[in-house]
């Protein structure tokens, strides 16, 4: 397996896995039963995507349960804590709108496996984006409290948006071979989508700020280590076992 392709598959897989893990923390604790179902459903889709991408990169379970933070390649956005429901929605809103565009383009990848995983996943993610967009509108244009919480949540998450569009030396050759998507080409459409939803929510676009970066190189926030400690506990505590 080509190292660059394997790394790329891990970036895609880790984004889905870490966000799926975060969403699964909501199970049984959501504000209403319908939301418990939606969040679990989105989490389930993401864990499924992660499995396919990580299988392309190698042994999916080995990669999920036996790497430490420095080898995880997810963006910083997805590892951010759930916070209140507004923070969960802000994270989903920024991510799913980006992921939908990314997967749409990836479904035309020169790598057939990537293309087929993306073609299936994009349908799921278009629902995730719709769900997040609708909730941004409800919370933004709901009560004073929900609006204040939504504004605060977007403030928290906004600085993690830039990283989604970064390109580095590992990605360049794959973009040239039309295997990877060039995320820079998605930015204008993403901004248009996000801006449109924020307008429907009667919210302002947060002011630009210096973006937080480092996830793709394994330089994460403190939150990821704790997430992994929980997620990886059993295979780490009982090495060599099958579950």
């Amino acid at each position, binding site marked *: 397996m080509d190292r660059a392709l394997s790394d790329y598959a891990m970036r895609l897989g880790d984004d889905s896995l870490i966000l799926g893990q975060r969403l699964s923390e909501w199970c049984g604790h959501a504000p209403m039963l319908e939301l418990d179902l939606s969040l679990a459903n989105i989490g389930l889709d993401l864990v499924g995507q992660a499995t396919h991408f990580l299988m392309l990169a190698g042994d999916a379970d080995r990669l999920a349960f036996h790497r430490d933070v420095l080898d995880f390649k997810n963006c910083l956005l997805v590892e951010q804590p759930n916070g209140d429901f507004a923070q969960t929605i802000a994270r989903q809103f920024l991510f799913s709108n980006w992921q939908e565009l990314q997967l749409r383009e990836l479904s035309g990848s020169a790598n057939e496996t990537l293309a087929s995983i993306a073609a299936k996943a994009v349908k799921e993610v278009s629902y995730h984006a719709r769900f997040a967009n609708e909730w941004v509108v409800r919370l933004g244009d709901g009560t004073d409290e*929900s609006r204040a919480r939504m504004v605060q949540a977007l403030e928290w998450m906004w600085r993690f948006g830039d990283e989604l569009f970064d390109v580095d030396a590992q990605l360049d050759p794959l973009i040239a071979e039309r295997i990877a998507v060039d995320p820079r080409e998605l930015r204008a459409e993403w901004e248009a989508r996000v801006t449109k939803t924020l307008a429907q929510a009667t919210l302002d676009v947060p002011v630009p700020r210096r973006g937080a970066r480092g996830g793709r190189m394994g330089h994460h926030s403190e939150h990821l280590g704790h997430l992994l400690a929980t997620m990886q506990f059993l295979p780490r505590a009982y090495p060599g076992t099958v579950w």
Partner: protein
Amino acid sequence: MYTTELEDKNKKPAPREVLVAEDPAKLVAFEARVAADEFIEPKDWMPAAYRKTLVRQMSQHAHSEIVGMLPEGNWITRAPSLRRKAVLLAKVQDEGGHGLYLYAAAETLGTSREEMIEALHSGRAKYSTIFNYPTLTWADIGAIGWLVDGAAILNQVPLQRTSYGPYARAMVKICKEESFHQRQGFEIMTVLAGGSPEQRRMAQDALDRWWWPSLMMFGPPDDNSPNTAQSIRWRIKRETNDELRQKFVDVTVPQADAIGLKVPDPKLAWNEARGSYDFGPVDWEEFYAVVRGEGLVAKDRMKARVAAWEDGAWVREAATAHAAKHVVKAAAE
């Protein structure tokens, strides 16, 4: 998941008095329909006690599904493989879905979901005692699927023919999903029982802890189950607690044998004459204590449910406020 009649044994139900007040002709016609295995539908006349029993049973059943998400949710974030994580997420999502159908079915009897949830949070409504036991190791997820969902299936299969139409129809869909839940639980146990010594220990320990609470899921013994006779007459239930419990033991013991686990009952023995297993006495004092809310994690479970509801109040209010604004806007256009 399923909850059987969960009343404190000291609390006497009073369906007889209620019955006396019913119109005798209507009652006779109702009982004839039920005896002929007709379904009773929401708009049909029904005795007040029938309605009350159903609201209690269906809402307990719905609450059990929702509270039951917690012990399993406790392990979703720690599921040991991607496949196990996906399966458990799907299972817990199914349970939330069962809760939704059951609340909706119970609402056809004139009690709102909010009222039912309020009754749960205030402690007036019960849910299955089984969820007041902790999920200590991963094997508990296997044991819940295998034993708890296994017991639920035996309870629920006859409910597909229960006399109240909306409940019976909800049960048809639920039963299909429960059998998948039971299989995934048994599969987890099979893998653990055949795994490392630590994994075998987890599996046996889980069976030791979940066996008796699973037998309690069928409810008090028939001679101390005041609602059973009336419920069977009205075809709300179709088999007694003890009959179902015996079936469960007969089905489950050979499964434990097949994977090399030992059922924690020294009195367990095959009875050739009956064609069934004899088994030791259930500790009903423990059952009633757990019904009263003395299970190890009962307070944790209710605290988690109440916190989810209260912390989420602003979200529900926002959704309502947003919808109301749109109604106003649509009317103005």
